[in-house]
């Protein structure tokens, strides 16, 4: 088969590209080739240089050395605008659109077609519809963008990118907020575009998706090129080993089942009866025990995050009660929840986790400091000690504790948020998608850490879109669908098939009592 498909024509070539930031060499002599009609996956761990490579080729940051050729001609884009004019269009992880404008306005923002009266709305709407039709999407383009799902918004971003006569489309983590059906929809679009002769660079942490869609894989590690491979020739184990630079067994071997039997608290630490909120989550029951991981599994929008927000007091419940250690507790604000020993790592690190400008140290001590109150302070020396301890313990990769947290990679930011909570000593830790958008190594670290914390008697609620991960870490799984808990799986019942079956069919026999 390999001989039947000769190398497609190379579209964009990077040769010996160098890029250094103060204190870090982000790209060290990296070669990369994107070809017409191919999906090329760019893979690597934290700090591998993926983001920098993307930024260099989209003109968001300039290379220090090396060559860049588009269709054989040297190019040197100085801004994303210029790269777009050359035919390199990018859709970033966080959708860069204006939620309050209409779909059509978003597609043409900044380059509205004009006629003698001003903006030519007829043409805008017609062309927006055409652009979306190319992606097999037929929606009302005059409606406000925020009214559509993230998946649709992503498609709109792609339509916007394609309208620039793109030759090369860069998709940076496009699937991290999409559910399985939406991913299929996106992939159908990608296949179509590929068939049209477009080159696509695909950055993702989902291995399944990479194997599903890509023709080639380029692996980077620590700013260096590890290699370029045909996807068909690179088994998964090999890929992971190359990305991590460590042996596969180390991270596949761990399983909660090894010592699951030892972990049994004396009755539930937190017990929920009929907790619910109209329009957000149907009343549900849930028991959380010390030394136990309860996974929340379900599709996007099934109510996983809503459950976490109710437990942590971000949203106010309008029915039901919560008992903590058999005493009634009113969790009506995050501060109240924290006083009861709860901690919450939110799904969206950037908007609700980190304080971007503050240092790693300040981010880590924040929860502890907040608990002490406004006027009682944590001595600086103690702050430094705490920061150092957790930077070391969690392997947070940062030049020093005073580095602004926004300069860290996603995985390290997530570890810092975890450190923030661990420093304040919670009894119940709610993790909402703790491994989303972070690399394989950091992911394994966080899973390991979760299990280590549970060993020590913490109760953990673990929310993840990746079933494999939920199965790996959970002692019990609550399955959600359409904003309700539809079933609960005990330790022996947990498997990806069982979870999917429960999502599809509802409660298995033993969870019948959980129904309202």
């Amino acid at each position, binding site marked *: 088969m390999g001989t039947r498909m000769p190398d497609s024509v190379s579209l964009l070539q990077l040769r010996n590209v160098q890029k250094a930031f103060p204190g870090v060499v982000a790209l060290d002599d990296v070669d990369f080739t994107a070809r017409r009609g191919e999906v090329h996956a760019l893979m690597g761990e934290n700090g591998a240089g993926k983001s920098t490579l993307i930024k260099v080729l989209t003109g968001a940051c300039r290379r220090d050395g090396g060559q860049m050729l588009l269709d054989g001609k040297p190019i040197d884009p100085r801004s994303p605008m210029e790269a777009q004019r050359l035919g390199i269009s990018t859709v970033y992880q966080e959708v860069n659109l204006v939620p309050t404008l209409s779909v059509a306005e978003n597609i043409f923002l900044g380059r509205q077609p004009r006629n003698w009266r001003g903006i030519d709305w007829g043409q805008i709407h017609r062309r927006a519809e055409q652009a979306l039709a190319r992606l097999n999407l037929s929606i009302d383009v005059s409606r406000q963008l925020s009214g559509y799902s993230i998946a649709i918004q992503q498609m709109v971003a792609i339509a916007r990118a394609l309208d620039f006569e793109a030759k090369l489309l860069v998709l940076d983590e496009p699937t991290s907020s999409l559910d399985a059906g939406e991913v299929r929809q996106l992939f159908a679009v990608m296949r179509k575009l590929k068939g049209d002769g477009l080159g696509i660079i695909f950055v993702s942490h989902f291995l399944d998706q990479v194997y599903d869609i890509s023709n080639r894989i380029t692996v980077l590690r620590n700013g260096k090129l590890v290699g370029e491979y045909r996807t068909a020739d690179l088994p998964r184990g090999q890929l992971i080993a190359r990305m991590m630079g460590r042996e596969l067994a180390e991270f596949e071997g761990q399983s909660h089942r090894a010592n699951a039997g030892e972990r049994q608290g004396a009755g539930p630490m937190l017990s929920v009866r009929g907790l619910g909120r109209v329009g957000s989550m149907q009343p549900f029951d849930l028991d959380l025990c010390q030394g136990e991981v309860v996974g929340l599994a379900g599709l996007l929008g099934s109510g996983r995050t809503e459950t976490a927000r109710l437990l942590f007091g971000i949203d106010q419940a309008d029915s039901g009660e919560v008992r903590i250690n058999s005493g009634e507790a009113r969790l009506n604000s995050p501060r109240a929840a924290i006083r009861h020993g709860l901690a919450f790592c939110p799904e969206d690190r950037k908007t609700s986790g980190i304080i971007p400008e503050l240092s790693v140290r300040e981010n880590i001590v924040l929860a502890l400091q907040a*608990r002490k109150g*406004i006027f009682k302070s944590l001595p600086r020396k103690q702050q*430094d000690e705490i920061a150092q301890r957790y930077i070391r313990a969690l392997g947070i990769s940062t030049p020093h504790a005073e580095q602004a947290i926004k300069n860290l990679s996603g995985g390290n930011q997530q570890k810092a948020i975890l450190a923030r909570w661990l420093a304040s000593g919670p009894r119940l830790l709610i993790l909402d998608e703790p491994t989303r958008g972070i690399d394989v190594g950091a992911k394994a670290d966080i899973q390991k850490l979760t299990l280590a914390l549970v060993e020590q008697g913490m109760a953990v609620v673990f929310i993840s879109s990746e079933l494999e991960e939920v199965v790996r870490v959970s002692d019990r799984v609550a399955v959600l669908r359409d904003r309700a808990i539809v079933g609960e799986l005990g330790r022996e019942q947990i498997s990806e098939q069982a979870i999917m079956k429960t999502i599809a069919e509802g409660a298995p026999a033993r969870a019948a009592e959980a129904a309202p």
Partner: protein
Amino acid sequence: MTDVQTPTIEPLASSPAAGRGRGRSSQWTKLLWPLLGLALLLLVDLVWVPNFFRIGVTEGRLTGTPIEIFRWSGPEVLLAVGMTLVLATGGVDLSVGAIMALSGAVTAKLAAGLQWPPWGAVLSALGASAAAGAWNGALVALLDIQPIVATLVLMVAGRGIAELISGAAHLKVSGTLFSALGGSPLGIPTEGLVGFGMFAAAAAFTRLTSTGLLIEATGGNRTASRFAGVNVRAVTFLAYAFSGLCAGLAGLLQTADLHGADASKMGLYWELDAILAAVIGGTALTGGRFSLLGAVLGAVLIVTLTTTIQTKVPVEYALVPKAVVVLVVCLLQSETFRQNALAPLRRRAA
């Protein structure tokens, strides 16, 4: 909080040893530009304004332009310090000028109109100002009204209330307390001492207690701070209340200095200078990191500038050169501008 038990964790694989922090070096570099601006301005004064730096002694008090700058800096610094903390929470306080007028009117009415003892008038004025600040804080922090709108209410109404209190008459305050506040019993102007004293107290307080961190966290990311358990409402409320108190103190000092209060003029447009001082000092209007020292430098820069201009240009035109200098400082602060402006120089050097 001794009951906090932190779990013990085995270091995970490949933990890099993190070095000790280099400290807040980037914070300090932000101070470079206002300092440079001030230095340039003083250089101009040295060359073009005769006797600018001459300091004399009259009746045991220091006199001269630098001493006057020190005096006038007092109220500016007070406003800038309060404003900086409000900006750092992600808000803005447009009412500080009106609160100055309110404070002055209360002082004058009670001390001169109603013949209260001076200390009673002073404490009432400060109380009223703090209450005005607390009103702003309540609107913003408790009712989630946008800061610019919430403080606009008092910006307009505060001055009106001040005029109602003082009436049409110009009330004159007198007595030892007021001459001490407005004069130089210690050899240098009390106004400056109070202003810089408040700066030192606020700087020490915010950095030695956790208030600084919590203010920066609140302004840096309100949602994340709330999720981390920070009482963002209390933090925000306190910032506005403090800003009100600072403005009241500034109004009081001005009243003592001028021996009376004119509610229609006192503190007029001062909120803009205060915002400017804070921004020149490196505090972003979007909130987060703040620098009180920077704000003080900004305030002194503005006062020096105003003083300088008034020696050369009629008061009516003074705002134009002032705007020019402010623009220059802001351009110097802009990284984009520096890169673009310096690029040709660098290319020539290469």
